[in-house]
């Protein structure tokens, strides 16, 4: 079993699991507490569409995915504000639009579509040193932003209107969260895949939400669950020779189910007595 550590590609996959899983866990807390879980799915499809367009026109797919994702994140908020409808409606419009572009692009790609389809499922075992460095960079950016603006982030997550009315730069915080979410999703496209990353953004924070009333602890648990899901997925996919992204998501979902079953928040009376 230990022979897996002899391979360099496996070490890269382990590093990607740690940085990617932790990043998705942190971003997931934002989208869950802001009540916009589908922003993850919209961005993952925007990144997927960007990668397909990149492949179609001969650009770097990752750069194209990042650009598409960032543009989508910048459209979602103002579209909801200007048109005066719910944020989730705006997310739904972006999601369907980018999905349309992705499928159109897939249809236009001539010959085998293997590379394009890799962006749906991801391929953590084939990532490069450069990909690992990018994942480390986005993890560092997320952590730095979280530490520097923790009090403002907490206020915005609790109630955007109160944060705004109190004189906080809530739009700066909110759009920074969206942009960092977009960057995280697009940089994880190679590893987890556009279709599956949404689950990795939702399941770990939802599991952490079951266990704690402390926001800092929720960030920590969510990041740990993200890392654990990725590492367990990597291990089992190697062991049983099954697609890695799918196993990662299965592990994340199982962690959520365990946390839900043993959640102390389901025993509110016990908490009150304590």
């Amino acid at each position: 079993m230990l022979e897996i550590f002899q391979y360099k590609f496996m070490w890269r996959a382990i590093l990607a699991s740690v940085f990617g899983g932790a990043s998705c866990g942190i971003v997931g807390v934002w989208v869950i507490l802001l009540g916009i879980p589908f922003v993850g799915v919209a961005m993952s499809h925007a990144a997927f569409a960007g990668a397909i367009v990149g492949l179609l026109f001969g650009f770097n797919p990752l750069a194209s995915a990042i650009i598409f994702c960032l543009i989508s994140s910048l459209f979602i908020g103002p579209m909801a504000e200007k048109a005066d409808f719910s944020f989730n409606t705006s997310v739904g419009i972006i999601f369907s639009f980018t999905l349309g572009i992705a499928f159109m692009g897939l249809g236009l790609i001539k010959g085998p579509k293997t590379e394009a389809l890799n962006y749906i499922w991801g391929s953590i075992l084939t990532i490069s040193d450069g990909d690992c460095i990018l994942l480390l960079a986005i993890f560092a950016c997320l952590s730095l932003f979280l530490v520097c603006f923790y009090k403002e982030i907490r206020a915005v997550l609790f109630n955007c209107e109160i944060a705004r009315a109190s004189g906080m730069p809530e739009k700066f915080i909110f759009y920074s969260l969206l942009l960092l979410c977009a960057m995280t999703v697009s940089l994880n496209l190679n590893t987890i895949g556009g279709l599956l990353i949404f689950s990795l953004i939702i399941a770990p924070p939802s599991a952490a939400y079951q266990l704690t009333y402390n926001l800092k602890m929720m960030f920590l648990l969510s990041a740990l669950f993200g890392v654990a899901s990725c590492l367990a997925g990597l291990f089992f996919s190697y062991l049983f020779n099954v697609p890695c992204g799918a196993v990662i998501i299965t592990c994340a979902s199982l962690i959520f189910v365990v946390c839900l079953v043993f959640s102390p928040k389901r025993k509110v009376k016990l908490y009150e007595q304590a």
Partner: protein
Amino acid sequence: MSAVVKIRDVSVSYRENVALKGANLDIEEGSFLCVIGPNGAGKTTLLTVINGLGKIIKGNVKVLGMVLNKRNIFAIRRNIGYVPQKQDIDPRFPITVREVVDIGRHCRIGLLRRMNEADREIVESAMKVVGISELAARPIGHLSGGEQQKVAIARALAQEPKIMLLDEPTSNLDPKARCEIMELINKVYWERRLTIVFVTHLLGHVSDRCRQAVLMKRGRIVWQGNINKALNRKLLADLYECPVEALERDMPLAIN
């Protein structure tokens, strides 16, 4: 006394609806102003004009001597404590009472700075005034509606505001909680000498500290003056478009 809020010919629009039409109002420093009117009269919109949350399409507003514009908006908001209508909070939300009150302090200390000992004392003092010190470590979602309103008032007080905007803080509360909140508002007004703007559609919720009133109907300020003159049978019957007998059921105050 000088006016801390000057509203001149202000109109606010949301979608096709004009929520506030040509409003003119001066609010004196240290006054307790009650904004009364039926649902949909534009009372909350009038409050949001003062703290810049409303979309002003016409007119101008001056708050604490500053023109309400993009440049001054953060400075103005930092000096205004805002208590919105009671909101549903997820009981599992990971934030404690003390952390919610901290939010009021955070806007005063600014970005990239941490709370110091003095800030923590202000937060503790705000919780003590409101009487929620023993609830400080509890998750906010576990509190009753009345307790959550007290937390909202403590958060606003931690901001050390010059003006407090209270948007129907006693709506949806039982009589005991309503009395407690009213006593608390009176105490805060008396001890801190703030300028308070209190919105309500229920006449029984008008504070006895209140001296000035604004009556609103269909987006317009239809009357302003002394509260005792406002609580007049004919005026109120016109305002609510129903017989005063129906209003009296919810109006323990004496009507002239």
